[in-house]
Structure formats: structure tokens, C-alpha cells
């Protein structure tokens, strides 16, 4: 299911784009893009992330934002955290692929805090949402308990005032347009009634 989501999210990325991939399902997107055509940005200070190191290639000081060892592509560059986030906030990163806990009917995302739990991490998620040109949310359509994650009203704290541009689940891809969700693509074998039953926010089909 995760692979299906990642593969479909990857199709939204345009040649030449600089893309930041979050932790979790977003990480899997790397498998489905040509790193010579799409450039991967990691907010800890790398542009041009390549595949994981092969035997003998490991450098423990070269990691991505998920703290996994990486390699870099030819033409890569290193920079510090302030410059990295300047790129992100300043709109120089074409897209971010991010996970989410909830998304509302306007595309507003909750992906960092759970009420009642001690919140000890935010990382770069809010910065990415504030600045990248296209935000692609990838997530399972429902929680493990089967509850809709696409909701009319967020019950979790929002991550930004800025909505996602695309929302990719194992059932469908939505686009956010004029403050509402628009169904872009239904996964083969999923009926529109099933999708509606598992989605707790309205969406249009054109």
C-alpha cells in the first residue's frame, strides 16, 4: 500500500524539480524518481541526494534528514541549516512530499502533535509547509482503526495556515483547488461510493 502511494506521488513530480522528501512514506518516493532528473533536497544541508550507499561507499557523516546514510549525485552541494531553510522558506524548493495525521476539506494539514501527548518534535515540517511551492501529502486513507484521516474539521493541531496542493492515499489522489478537495484520480478497483464512505470531508469530482 505504501509503495502504491509513493509510486503515485512520484508521478506528480516534474523533471528538473527540487524536491524534499519527509520521513515515512515520503522516503519511499525516492525509489520511483530518476535522481538525475528530479533533485532531492534534504533539510540538514544536501541538494542532490543519491541512493543509499553500496558496499564500501558508507560515510557515517553523510545522512539525510531521516538520519539514514546516503550518497550524493554528481552536481550535489552541501550547505548549512540556515541556508537550507532559507531555500525552503524562500520558495526555491519546488515540492515537498510529507506525511500527515489528518487533512481537512480545505487541505489544511495536521502532522506534528497529538492532543494530550507531550509534544517534543516538530522538525522542519512547518518550514516546508510555509515555503515550498507544491506540497504533496501522502498518507494512508484511514487510521489503523479505520477512521477517516480526511476530515471536515481537524481534531489535531494544524501544522500551517497553508494547505496542501495534492493529497495521495491508497484510494485516490486529490488536488486542492479554490479551498476545496477535487478528486484527481481514483485508484483502479476503488468505487466512488467506497471513497466517499471512507472520507469524512466533502470533495468534488471535477
Amino acid at each position, binding site marked *: 500500500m505504501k509503495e502504491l502511494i509513493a509510486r503515485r506521488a512520484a508521478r506528480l513530480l516534474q523533471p528538473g524539480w527540487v524536491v524534499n522528501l519527509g520521513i515515512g512514506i515520503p522516503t519511499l518516493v525516492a525509489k520511483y524518481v530518476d535522481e538525475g532528473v528530479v533533485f532531492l533536497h534534504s533539510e540538514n544541508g544536501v541538494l542532490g541526494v543519491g541512493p543509499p550507499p553500496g558496499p564500501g561507499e558508507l560515510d*557515517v557523516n553523510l545522512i539525510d534528514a531521516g538520519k539514514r546514510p546516503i550518497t550524493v549525485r554528481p552536481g550535489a552541494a*552541501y550547505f*548549512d541549516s540556515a541556508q537550507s531553510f532559507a531555500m*525552503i*522558506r524562500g520558495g526555491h524548493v519546488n515540492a515537498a512530499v510529507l506525511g500527515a495525521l489528518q487533512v481537512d476539506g480545505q487541505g489544511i494539514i495536521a502532522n506534528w502533535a497529538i492532543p494530550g501527548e*507531550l509534544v517534543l518534535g516538530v*522538525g*522542519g515540517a512547518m518550514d516546508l509547509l510555509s515555503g515550498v511551492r507544491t506540497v504533496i501529502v501522502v498518507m494512508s486513507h484511514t487510521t489503523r482503526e479505520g477512521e477517516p484521516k480526511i476530515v471536515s474539521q481537524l481534531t489535531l493541531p494544524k501544522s500551517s495556515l497553508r494547505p496542501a496542493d495534492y493529497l495521495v492515499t491508497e484510494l485516490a489522489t486529490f488536488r486542492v483547488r479554490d479551498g476545496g478537495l477535487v478528486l484527481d484520480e481514483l485508484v483502479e478497483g476503488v468505487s466512488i461510493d467506497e471513497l466517499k464512505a471512507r472520507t469524512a470531508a466533502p470533495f468534488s469530482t471535477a
Partner: protein
Amino acid sequence: MMKVLSAEEAVAEVVFDGATLMVGGFGLVGKPLTLVRALNASAFKDLTVISNNLGEPGKGLGETLRLGKVRRAIGSYFTTNPDVGAAVLAGKLEVTLIPQGTMAEAMRAAGAGLGGFYTPTAAGTRLAEGKETRVLRGREYVLEEPLHADVALIRAHRADKLGNLVYWKSARNFNPVMATAAKTVVAEVDEIVEVGALDPEIIVTPHLYVDRLVIAKERL
């Protein structure tokens, strides 16, 4: 020429009880592990630690926390060390969470002599609560203050004898910007080379930001 000290000497010279320390690194990468070990071996306490995270349980700054030396932690991602949550719940640690980019920018603002800046990050969220917000040209921004420290403990790859620094791959991360934001900067490096051995085009941290050098004994 820059003073070259052992990590223990450097920590003894620059740290003090109640000091605010910036510690470089993203996870353990780019973390000045030799200096952190010397800090852990010291008697200094009541520290405020500004670092993206607080290591892993019992490792690096995680050990500093276990030793009860950290009164307050400022960072963006403490989730990887369960000791942090336990210390907060036990009332032993105060945590201030800042978006990672805002943290880096606040350090840069401190190093660049600015009084504050307006960032769109976190506007409208819980992390903006209690902060001044403002709509500028139709967009909501949060006013953030510069983030200063008494001491920065940073990790670089090579220094020349004046204190000019170059870094290694993604171990650069917060280190250069922390070097600008603290009153006293100690750089832990793999190697110290002669003045003139580093091309002026490739120096990332010019020597005017650096106060002490220490040779790294601990490696990843």
C-alpha cells in the same frame, strides 16, 4: 594564532554554571563528541542547551541530560530520546520547541546583529502562541527573536591555525550558524593545518568567529 586546547581545558575555560550552550550537529552527525564528553566529565550544571535534538538515550547530549546538567533544552526534535519526555514529566527539564528552520534563522539573526525577523513558519499554529504575529502584504508572519548563546561547541573538519574552518558533507548543518551566534566559540576539528593551506574561496567559517580549537578524539 588560535589557542589549541584539550577538550577538558576548553570546557573548563569557556563553560560556567548556568551557561547557555549551543551544540552543533544533526543527530550525532556534526556533533562535537569530544567536547560533549568533556562537558559530561565536568561539574558544570544548570545548563541551557540549544541543539536540534538531545542525542540518544545516554549518548552524547543524552548523557549530559542523564547526568542532570541540563535545566532547559531548546531545539526542534527531541522525539528520538525518550529520556527527554521523562525528564519533562518529572519536572527536571524545561523544553522549548522551535521549528527547525526558525531555530536556524534565529541563530543567524543573532549572529547578524538583527533585532528580530518575521517568518511565515508556524503562523496560525500552537507554536506561535504567545508570540507576536502580524500580517504583512497579505500574509501572516510570526515575530521571532534572535537566539544567542554564551558558548557554542561546534564540529568542523579542518581548521587552519588562525581558526578558519571547513566542514565535512552533511556534518556542516548547524555548526556554521552557531559559530556566529555565541559569545565564545570552540571548534572541534579533525585536523589543524598551516595558515594559507585553505583556499580563501572555500572557507565556510572565517576565523573571526572562532575562539578556541580542540582536536577531535571521538569519531562516529
